[in-house]
C-alpha cells in the first residue's frame, strides 16, 4: 500500500485541492503573530510554518455541543415535564494539512483513550474517522523540540495518513508524499501526481536523517523507560515539586497548546433563564486549573500549583505509559515550553526527576 508521489512546490495548492475534494481543509494560517489552523479556500497557498496551536481542535473541538435539551410541560398535567434531547452531530469530512509528526501522533495518543479504550467516544470517533491527516515532516529542529526522546521523531508517521517531506531547493523544491494508511493512499491517488523517483525518495530519507541528526546534536535522546517509576517515587517529594512549580502561573496555556492533552469539562448551559432549554457542552479543560479538581463540597485535593504541575508531568510520563504499554503521552513538540509565559520546561522536570533518583535510588 505504501507508495510515494512527488509534488512540485508550485503544484502544492493544486494537489491539495484535489486531495481535499469534498472535504473541509484545515491549513496553517498566520493571524497576528500566531499561526493557527483555519479552513482553507480552494487554490489558497498554504503556509508551511509550524503552527503555534496544534490542529487537535479539528477532531477534539475547543467546545462542542453534545446535545440540546428541551423541557416541555405536559399541557394536561402542568406539574409534569418531559425532556426532549436533540443529539444530532454535524460532522463534515475534513482534511488537516501541514501539522507536524508530533501533532499527528497526538491523535494516536487520543485514539488509545477515546477509540480503543474501554469506552469508545462517539463524537471523537466520528470526527477522527471523517478526517484525513496530511503531515509535513520537519527539516529543522526547533530549540524546544525533543520528539526524539519520546518515541516520536521528525518523520514519524504515527497518526498520519500521508507524510510529506520537503526536498530540493529553489526551482527544484517540492515534496515527497508517502501514503501511510489506505485512506491516505486513496486521497493521494486522487491528486494525480507523478511517482517520486528514487533520487527524490533518497533525498527525503536524507532530510529525515539530517533533522534527526540535528536533534541529536542539540540534545542527545534520552531513555525514558525508567521515568514512570521514578516519577512515582518522587510523588510525595514536596520540595521537588515546589522547586519545579515555583514560577508556574497555573494558567493552563501549556495544556491547550499540547497536541496530546485530552481532558475535558462538561457543562449545561441554559438558553434563557427559565431552564427550559439549553445545551450540554463539552469543552477543553486542564489539570493546571484549580476548578479541575475542586469538589462540590469546596474541598480541593490538588490545592496548589505544585500538585497540579505534578499531575501534568505525572500523567504524561508515568500514569499514561503505565496503562499504555510504555507509550508516553508527550510527543516532545515543545509547545508547552515555547508557549508558557514563564518558560516552564517539561524536559527539565522529567530529567531532574529521573536523574535525581539515579543518584539516590531510594529517595
Amino acid at each position: 500500500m505504501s507508495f510515494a508521489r512527488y509534488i512540485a512546490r508550485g503544484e502544492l495548492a493544486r494537489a491539495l485541492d484535489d486531495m481535499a475534494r469534498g472535504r473541509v481543509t484545515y491549513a496553517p494560517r498566520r493571524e497576528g503573530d500566531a499561526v493557527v489552523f483555519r479552513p482553507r479556500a480552494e487554490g489558497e497557498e498554504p503556509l508551511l510554518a509550524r503552527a503555534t496551536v496544534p490542529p487537535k481542535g479539528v477532531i477534539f473541538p475547543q467546545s462542542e455541543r453534545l446535545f440540546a435539551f428541551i423541557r416541555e410541560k405536559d399541557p394536561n398535567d402542568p406539574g409534569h415535564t418531559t425532556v426532549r434531547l436533540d443529539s444530532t452531530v454535524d460532522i463534515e469530512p475534513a482534511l488537516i494539512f501541514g501539522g507536524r509528526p508530533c501533532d499527528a501522533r497526538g491523535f494516536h495518543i487520543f485514539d488509545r483513550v477515546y477509540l480503543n479504550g474501554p469506552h469508545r467516544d462517539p463524537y471523537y470517533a466520528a470526527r477522527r474517522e471523517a478526517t484525513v491527516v496530511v503531515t509535513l515532516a520537519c527539516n529543522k529542529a526547533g530549540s524546544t523540540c525533543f520528539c526524539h526522546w519520546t518515541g516520536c521523531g521528525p518523520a514519524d508517521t504515527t497518526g498520519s495518513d500521508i507524510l510529506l517531506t520537503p526536498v530540493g531547493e529553489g526551482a527544484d523544491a517540492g515534496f515527497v508524499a508517502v501514503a501511510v494508511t489506505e485512506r491516505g493512499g486513496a486521497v493521494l491517488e486522487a491528486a494525480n501526481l507523478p511517482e517520486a523517483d528514487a533520487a527524490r525518495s533518497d533525498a527525503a530519507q536524507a532530510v529525515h536523517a539530517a533533522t534527526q541528526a540535528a536533534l541529536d546534536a542539540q540534545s542527545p535522546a534520552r531513555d525514558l523507560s525508567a521515568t514512570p517509576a521514578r516519577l512515582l517515587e518522587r510523588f510525595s517529594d514536596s520540595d521537588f515539586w515546589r522547586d519545579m512549580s515555583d514560577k508556574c502561573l497555573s494558567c493552563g496555556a501549556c495544556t491547550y497548546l499540547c497536541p496530546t492533552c485530552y481532558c475535558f469539562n462538561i457543562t449545561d448551559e441554559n438558553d434563557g433563564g427559565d431552564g427550559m432549554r439549553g445545551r450540554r457542552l463539552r469543552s477543553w479543560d486542564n489539570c493546571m486549573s484549580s476548578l479541575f479538581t475542586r469538589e462540590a463540597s469546596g474541598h480541593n485535593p490538588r490545592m496548589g500549583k505544585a500538585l497540579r504541575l505534578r499531575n501534568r508531568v505525572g500523567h504524561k510520563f508515568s500514569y499514561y505509559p503505565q496503562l499504555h504499554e510504555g507509550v508516553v503521552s508527550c510527543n516532545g513538540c515543545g509547545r508547552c515550553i515555547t508557549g508558557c509565559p514563564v518558560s516552564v520546561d517539561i524536559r527539565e522536570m522529567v530529567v531532574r526527576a529521573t536523574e535525581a533518583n539515579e543518584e539516590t535510588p531510594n529517595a
Partner: protein
Amino acid sequence: MPVLKGKELRVVGFLCNWCSYGGADTAGVGRFSQPTDLRIIRVPCSGRVDPMFVVKALLGGADGVLVSGCHPRDCHYSQGNFYARRRLETLKTFLPALGIDPDRFQYTWVSASEGQRWKNVVSTFVEKVHQLGHAPRIEEAAPYLPLAAGGDSPRAPLRPLAYPAAGTLAASLEQLREKIRAALPELDCVIGWQQGFDALHATPLFMRKPEDVDKLTWGPLNVHNLATYLPQFKNRKVGVVVKGCDSRSVIELLQEKLVEPDNVRVFGMACEGVVDMARVQKTLDAGNADGAMCADVAPAAVAAEGDGLTVEGEAPARLKLADVVAEKCRTCDTPVPLLGDVVEGNASAPAGPAPDAPPSLEVLDAMTPEQRRGFWRAQMDRCLRCYACRNACPMCVCRDHCIAESRDPHWTTQEGNVREKLQFQVIHALHLAGRCTECGECQRACPVNIPVLSLKQWMNRSVRTLFDYRAGVDVNAVPPLLAFAVEEKNIKEHGL
C-alpha cells in the same frame, strides 16, 4: 419609538428600587404614554449595577441599556450612586473600544416623584436607540486583521535606549547580587531572573540558597513582571527584583493591601528596556522563505550592548533595540524603580516624556467602530480561553475564583465563541480600571499573541482623563473606582 410606530427594539433598564423604579411607577399611575421597548430590571441601588451587567446585555444582543438611580445626595444607601457615577462614566468611555456606540448606553437619575421626568428620560433614550437601529452583533462583524498584514510598524522610543558596556552592566549586577545575598537569610526567597531554556529566553528564578544568587541575570530578556508572584507569599517575607515598570505593580499591590509592606523587600535596578519576543522572532525569521519551516530555532548566544542585541549562531545578526523593544518601553517614563530597598544601575537614567496615548493604542484609535468590532472578532477567534492573560497579571488576584469560570454566578458559558471570549477580556479590563499599571504581562503571556493590552490602555486613558489618575505611583493613593467626589470635576451630568 413606541411600539405603535414600528418594530420594538430590545432595551434593558436597570432601575434602582427606591427612586427610579418608583418614578416609573408614578409615570404608570399618571398614565403617561411611554415606549414599550424597555425591559426593566429592578436593583436595590444604582451602585449595584456592575458595568459588566451592561456589557453583557450589549454583547448579548440588547440594542440599548439604561441605568437610572436616585439623584446624587439622595441615595438610600447614601453613597451608592456616587460610586455608580464613576463606574458608569468610565464604562461609557470604554464602550467605543469594543466598537459599541456609547449612545446605546445611558445612565441618569430620576426620583420617585418624578413621573414626568421618567417619561421624558425613557422616551428620549428609546428614541435615540431607535435612531441607531438594531445593534450590530460582534460575532457577525466582518473579520478585520490589520496587524496580520504587517501593519505593526515599530516607532522610535521616546527616550534613547542604550545598554551600558558589558563591564558596567556586570558590575551593577554583582552589586545587586551582593545585596540579595546579604538579605537572603531573613527571606523565604528572592525572585529574579535566570537564563531560560535557550539563549533567547530568560525565566523567573527563585533564590533560596546563596548559590542560587549566582544564577541571577540582568538584561533585555528579563521581560517578566515578577510582582505577579508576590500575593501568593502571604504572611511570608519575600524579596523581588524589579525594573522600573514592575515597581509600579509592587506599589499598586501595597496600595491595595494585597501585600504587606513589612513582608516584601524590593531590589530595584534601573532599566534600559526589554524586548518583545515576538518581534525578535519575526526579525530573526525574516528572509526565511516558506514562512519558516520551524519558527523557533534559537541562536547560540544573545548579548545586549549599546543600542542593539548581538545574536550569534547559525544566523548571526545585530538587532537594533529600537526595532525589537517591547511596546511599553518606547514610552517608559519610569526606567528607575519608584520604590526599592535597593536600587542599582544607572539611577539617573533619563525617562521619556509621558505620552498622551501609547503608540499601540493608535492602532485601535485609527479604526472605525465597525472595524473595531471586526478587529476583536478576528483576534478573539483564536483565543484558547487559557487565561494566561489573567494569571500573568499582577493585579488579578482572584485567579482560582475568577467569575470567568465560576458556575455560580454563571457569567460566561463554556462556548468557544467570540462573544464569550471578548466578554472575559471586558471583565479583565473593567476589573483593572484604575488599577492596571500597563505592565503588558497580559499580552505578553498570551500564547497566540492577542493584543489584549490595548483594551487596558484604552481604559487607562479614560481613567486619566476622568480622574487625572495613574495607577502604581503613590502607595497612599486610593484607586479612583474605589472612591468618589460629591462634585466630580470631569464628569458632566448627562441630560436626558
